[in-house]
């Protein structure tokens, strides 16, 4: 069907014109080349004009669909946004911005493999683009691919950002810190946070956020310092006061913590967590014999803590399985029983070193029972905190 002999073909077949062409070329070859060149240039310009019109038409349509996509993206209608960006890309194939927006829509739709294909292609075109590196980092972070995620997060931190680069880089670094903390790589997170902390702008919310991240590391010193910087800008910010109180509490600076927590509660009395912390801040010094230099009160406090720890140990041995208690708690119980026979106010007064031995055993008991029988309550919990403060754990 496709091939039918056209009558035209029969009449217009070329004759073998070697003699004719011989003369023809001899005379006209340069002229033919000039004419062909002129026709080529004219044709080129004509197609150039058409191309310009065509491109303008395509750009108009692409912009129309891209604007629609942006609106859908902002409204959270990611499927419609992806469709609009795909349409825009049919008119502006390879457009960097549209492809990036499409990739972002696809990420939001959890179509990560498709998004990844676009993003890898975009990255190959502009490896220094911050948004692309960040999106890639997020995809690899979601996949749990730490090495790739770190690579792209770092790329994004040092990448080129079209607007407000410092804020963008800071935001990426904070996102990286959260990712590192989520993946229990606290040392790396701390290094990143220290780098952020050096150049953090004067902004209460940001400083509070960084302080919170230091708390997660945990680096209570730097967290407290960051909260204190935030409080310089907002003295009566109850949230920051409460957070500073908690940081000071974790550092064992109970007096400092008490001051912040009291201020926080005076502004926001219904903050139960701060109230609880404040209560502990006030109770811990009363249980810590090292707050008192010498005297009967100190010895009695040692004896009281010793008894408290002994009761906790007994209860824990009775509640836990025999195997566990035999291996870890029994030796402590033997030590406790041995010391119990020797420990009284007189022996404490005679042998000042016995205070340390007794308190060391108390702290060991609280630590071991914490591991075996779970987090203690009441005075046992306070003793555990005191143990941590004194032993740096």
């Amino acid at each position, binding site marked *: *069907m496709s091939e039918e002999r056209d009558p035209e073909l029969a009449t*217009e*077949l070329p004759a073998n*014109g070697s003699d004719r062409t011989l003369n023809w070329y001899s005379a006209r070859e340069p002229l033919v080349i000039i004419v062909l060149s002129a026709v080529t240039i004219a044709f*080129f310009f004509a*197609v150039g004009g058409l191309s310009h019109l065509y491109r303008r038409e395509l750009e108009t349509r692409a912009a129309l669909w891209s604007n629609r996509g942006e609106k859908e993206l902002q409204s959270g209608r990611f499927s419609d946004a992806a469709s609009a960006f*795909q349409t825009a890309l049919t008119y502006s*194939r390879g457009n960097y911005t549209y492809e990036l927006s499409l990739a972002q829509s696809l990420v939001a739709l959890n179509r990560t493999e498709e998004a990844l294909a676009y993003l890898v292609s975009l990255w190959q075109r502009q490896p220094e683009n911050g948004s692309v590196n960040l999106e890639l980092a997020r995809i690899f972070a979601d996949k749990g691919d730490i090495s790739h995620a770190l690579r792209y997060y770092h790329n994004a931190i040092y990448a080129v950002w079209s607007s407000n680069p410092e804020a963008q880089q800071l935001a990426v670094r904070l996102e990286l810190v959260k990712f590192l903390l989520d993946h229990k790589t606290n040392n790396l997170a701390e290094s990143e946070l220290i780098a952020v902390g050096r150049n953090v702008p004067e902004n209460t919310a940001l400083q509070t956020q960084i302080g919170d991240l230091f708390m997660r590391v945990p680096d209570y010193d730097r967290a407290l310092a960051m909260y204190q910087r935030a409080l310089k800008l907002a003295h009566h910010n109850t949230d920051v006061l409460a957070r500073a109180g908690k940081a000071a509490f974790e550092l064992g600076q109970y007096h400092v913590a008490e001051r912040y927590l009291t201020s926080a509660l005076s502004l926001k009395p219904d903050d139960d967590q701060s109230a609880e912390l404040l209560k502990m801040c006030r109770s811990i010094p009363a249980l810590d014999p090292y707050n008192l230099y010498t005297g009967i009160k100190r010895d009695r406090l040692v004896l009281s803590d010793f008894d408290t720890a002994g009761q906790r140990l007994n209860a824990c041995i009775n509640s836990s399985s025999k195997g566990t208690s035999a291996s870890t708690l029994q030796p402590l119980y033997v030590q406790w029983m041995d010391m119990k026979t020797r420990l009284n106010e007189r022996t404490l007064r005679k042998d000042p070193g016995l205070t340390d031995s007794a308190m060391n055993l108390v702290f060991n008991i609280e630590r071991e029972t914490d591991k075996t029988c779970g987090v203690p309550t009441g005075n046992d919990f306070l003793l555990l905190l005191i143990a941590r403060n004194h032993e740096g754990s």
Partner: protein
Amino acid sequence: MAEPQLENAELGNALPVNHSSTSRSLLRFVFREERFFLVLSVFIGIFSGLSVVCFRFAIDLSRMYFLGSETAASHMRLLLAPTLAGLAIGALVLHVFPLARGSGVNQTKAALYIYNGYIPFRTAIGKFITAALSIGSGHSLGPEDPSLQIGAGLASALGRKLHLSRDRMRLIAPVGAAAGLAAAFNAPISAVLFVIEEVIGRWSAAILGSVVLSAVSSVVVMRWFLGSEPLFRIPPVELVRPGELIAYAVLGIAGGFASIIFSGGIGTMRPILKRMPRWTQYFQPAVAGLIIGFIAIMGAPQVMGAGYDFIDQAIHNQFTWSFLGILVGLKILATIVSFVSGTPGGMFAPTLFIGAMLGAFVAGLEHLVFPHLAISTGTYAMVGMGVLFAGFLRAPMTSVFMVLEVSGNYTIILPVIVANTFAYVISRALQPTPIFDLLTRQDGLDLPSMEEQREQSILRVEDAMRPVSGPVLDAEQTLERTIEKLNGVQSENLLVRKRPTGWNTITMEELKKMLSEGKGDSRLKSVLPIRQIPYLHPDHPLDIAMRYIYRYPILPVVSRADVSKLEGAISKEDVLKSYHELGDSLDETED
């Protein structure tokens, strides 16, 4: 006797050394036309590139106006656009552009072999308009084959305007075809290979340079206007284990069978539609459009048009494996109805589409069966494109280089070769006639089949030569001594060895005559009637022997390592006997 200075038959094509002024001017003309043809090839490439750029604009604009600017067109548009465009196309190809039907590859081949390179310019215009309408409105056809014909049409028109000789006119259409295809594909190597493999059918130094120049020029122009981005976003290709090649072989087998279904469908349906009354041809493209529109509104609008965007999506794993399988079937159906209805448009893009979907489908299936294997859908889709190219279009070389060029990754070559070989072998075994040859035969034309030519058994000199029965004479000996040695020898034609490497021949009768004339003391070399004769090597095609054998009763067949070492001799009778035996064996095969 003025003999040309011929020695080795390979040099036998060289022009005779004749110092007449006519020969000199003829020689100058040949070189001048050769050079001009190369320059012209660049212009053809540029014109074809510009035309293909316009063709692409036309297709895109046609698509925008027919199917709307959004990616998901309304059902009304999906149904009406290809149907109404089909009606217009039916009228146009029946009344205005009758030669614009079909893909364009065979028409270009016909121009080369039948019409001395003549393609009416009107056909190129018609192809441009009708193919833009059909592809833009959603008919399941591609722009590559029409681009090939547009390029060939332009080149032919230019050649006519410049009064090129008949030989050049025959070559100019393939030069334009390569330019058109290269611009459409954005792949110059594949275009050159395809034109040589499918249109010209032989590697010829005379045309290779022109084809390459035109293809490269057209791609440069196309990239100038449309950018140099590849057709698809290519994912990283990795062949982790050699064992994966087995999986690609499975894809090759699937591709071979899909090719059979595809070409079988076209081969069966086309004659049926051709036999229908002429008035139905007005409506055949419209009915095809209606069927495609129906497929689209049923949930597979991906089958409409060339489908490159969807190939890209398949490469990036954006379809479920079951939907990919459905797309393979529906695209085959849509392309068959589009093509057999006579709608102008090409089969390259649909072939790539079907191949990509099939590749991704096989990858999906293998992933389902062997979930532990790291199967890359993108790689399978790309290999699948090559598989269909090898199985359906039966262009094995082009299929390999096309995937290489599109992917830009050498790692893919092994999977492509393995899969393509399986597809090609299966397709050849079950469908002996390639699709392009099938179409030409259905049209009543008898164009040379490139596949048959490739696989033709060639007779060589070694098949016809015989051992030298008589003595080989030494040209340095005297005539008297030579005749003494020949006492009792029956051979009529005798070979003479000339030191150091030449050969000659003389008959017993001539020797005796010279002896009776009193030349007994003369050396044989001084009395030989001709200076020397050409010699052959055993591996020479027998056709070369045919060029000389009518002038010399016997020719020496000598070793390539030492041309003074005689391997045998060949005479006219030996050559004819060989051809006779070949003819008998072919008759037996056909019976």
